[in-house]
């Protein structure tokens, strides 16, 4: 379970940091077209209208707290994509959707992409050593 979440976190980091690739494409007046083009850079195809629906609904589910967090969002997105789609593509889809349709929600994605803080050093257990007395 922990390993699965670690993989998801790595994928989330990619979703946040990789979009430079997508931004290189010329921006269109139609956000659905920009979204569609960005998805192509991740190897995600399918119908433009359908993908736009799913992207917008992913945002709606976060606004409405239907999905409690971005892990749930990416799980839901993966179920809506082609069966051959990967977990990484689901995170990339989510990142693109949030940048396109709900940038106000991006901190949720950035938070899970932060590297975990180093745990504080544990205090030594057992009786004090002679040198410590």
């Amino acid at each position, binding site marked *: 379970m922990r390993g699965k979440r670690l993989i998801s976190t790595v994928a989330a980091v990619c979703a946040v940091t990789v979009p430079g690739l997508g931004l290189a494409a010329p921006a269109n007046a139609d956000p659905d077209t920009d979204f569609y083009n960005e998805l192509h850079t991740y190897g995600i195809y399918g119908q433009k209208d359908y993908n736009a*629906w*799913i992207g*917008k*609904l992913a945002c709606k589910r976060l606004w409405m707290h*239907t999905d409690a967090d971005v892990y749930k969002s990416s799980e839901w997105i993966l*179920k*809506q994509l082609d069966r051959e789609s990967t977990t990484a593509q689901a995170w990339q889809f989510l990142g693109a959707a949030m940048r396109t349709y709900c940038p106000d929600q991006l901190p949720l994605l950035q938070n899970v992409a932060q590297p975990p803080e180093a745990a504080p050093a544990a205090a030594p257990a057992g009786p004090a050593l002679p040198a410590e007395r």
Partner: protein
Amino acid sequence: MLGKASLVAAAISVAAVSIPAVAAADATDDYPIPNRILRTTCTAEQIMAAARDTDPVYFERYMIDYHNHNPDVQRATRDKMHWFFSMDYAGRRQYSEELVTSLGDPLTGAWPNHAKLFFNNKGVAAHTTDVCADYPSDPAIWDYPAHW
């Protein structure tokens, strides 16, 4: 002239042959209401909540359509779905028969697609009835906002 008359007669007799085929479109255990819907123990609200997750675009379009109708039609839709899912299999099967043979009720006239989310698509019915028991029966699902 006679040739034309023969063609007309032939056309009429072909039509006569095809009419019984149309009339023979009786209800089955899977038509017009999918078998999964006839047999599920879920409520309308549980099926809707499941559809929100399994067939989100289909669900979204239905809810937009629902909110585009006046409150009387919305209430009648809710009541009809509650009535339908309160029945056992035999009652639902009987209603499925009536759907084929009747000309429809006033609600169907006001909103022909009022049951679309539940009755019209076997694939959606299969997806929703697979998981609907995992969802609460929350009437708030009818207030699902019709915008993203």
